[in-house]
């Protein structure tokens, strides 16, 4: 299904999500096309519903350049790792962990080929979903240092929130669909 079809298929109990997606994602003005679609890609990837990921990737390919698409996927990939590692470091009261080398490659953060601020935006969205507080805090600061407004940052977080919620609903709805087939 295309992403529009998936949104239309959301059940009645998730009508808020459907309308939020429609008004926010389709009508927002704070973010550029690339920023918007990169946020959708990174958010879908870390929200883990396969149907949604498939639909978002397909649509994103028509909206942004191949480099930007790869970069958004890279943001989700590297944040999937960093959100766990650095969340642990910040949750642990043992300060020694921060002085020990992480030994984790994250070179794509330098070599992704798009505006660093866009990459940071997508990383922030992924971090918001994955729940790493320290990551959210530091990426948010970097974004504001580079001239992003609170409104822009919040818009990408709204998008991340909606995407995550939609993924949750689609997971549940896929059970019903599977049961119908096997019944």
């Amino acid at each position, binding site marked *: 299904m295309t992403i529009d079809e998936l949104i239309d298929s959301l059940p009645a109990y998730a009508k808020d999500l459907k309308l939020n997606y429609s008004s926010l994602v389709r009508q927002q003005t704070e973010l550029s096309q690339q920023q918007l679609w990169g946020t959708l890609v990174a958010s879908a990837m870390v929200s883990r519903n396969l149907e949604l990921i498939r639909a978002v990737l397909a649509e994103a390919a028509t909206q942004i350049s191949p480099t930007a698409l790869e970069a958004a996927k890279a943001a989700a990939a590297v944040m999937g790792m960093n959100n766990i590692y650095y969340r642990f470091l910040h949750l642990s009261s043992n300060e020694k962990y921060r002085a020990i*080398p992480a030994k984790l490659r994250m070179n794509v953060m330098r070599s992704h080929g798009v505006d660093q601020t866009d990459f940071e935006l997508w990383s922030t969205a992924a971090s918001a979903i994955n729940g790493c507080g320290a990551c959210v805090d530091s990426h948010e600061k970097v974004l504001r240092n580079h001239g992003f407004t609170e409104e822009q940052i919040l818009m990408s977080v709204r998008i991340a929130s909606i995407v995550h919620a939609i993924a949750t609903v689609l997971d549940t709805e896929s059970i019903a669909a599977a049961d119908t087939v096997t019944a």
Partner: protein
Amino acid sequence: MLGVGQKFPDYSLTATVSLDMKNAFKTITNNDYAGKWKVYFFWPKDFTFVCPTEIAAFGKINKEFLDRDAQILGGSTDSEFVHHAWRTHHEDLKNLPFPMLADVKRELTSALDILDPDAGVAQRATYIVDPDGIIRFAYVTDLSVGRNPQEVLRVLDALQTDELCPCNWQKGEETLVVA
């Protein structure tokens, strides 16, 4: 011998790159493989015992080096023909995936200062050189002891791994800037 922080010497050498006599030899210079890391390792003599196991061991993990944007270049003071003959006759070296440099005039090995004073041939020296041509790792063992390619890979990994996250930024350091 040249060490960490120094520039790897300029060179232009014939190398043995395949068994097929039509395209077995190629000139390789320090300007080739631009943008890549390079792993140079030298051995004393072709047709001896310790060397093939080491060389084959590097060959087996060549893909790991390529994945890390690193080109392996082997070398000794033997000629390109001796390299070719050795590879032809040694089972473990037939399909070697990287070039063997022939430093016949001892130019590169002298510039690196890795010639054994008694034997007059290269010591078992290994260098990791970054894309800017700077030596970042130097490792040498005595003539009779083989080296550990996994260790070289480990060091390459460590050299290439930086914590680039904003949450590691310490006050006063430069912020992340796209190259």
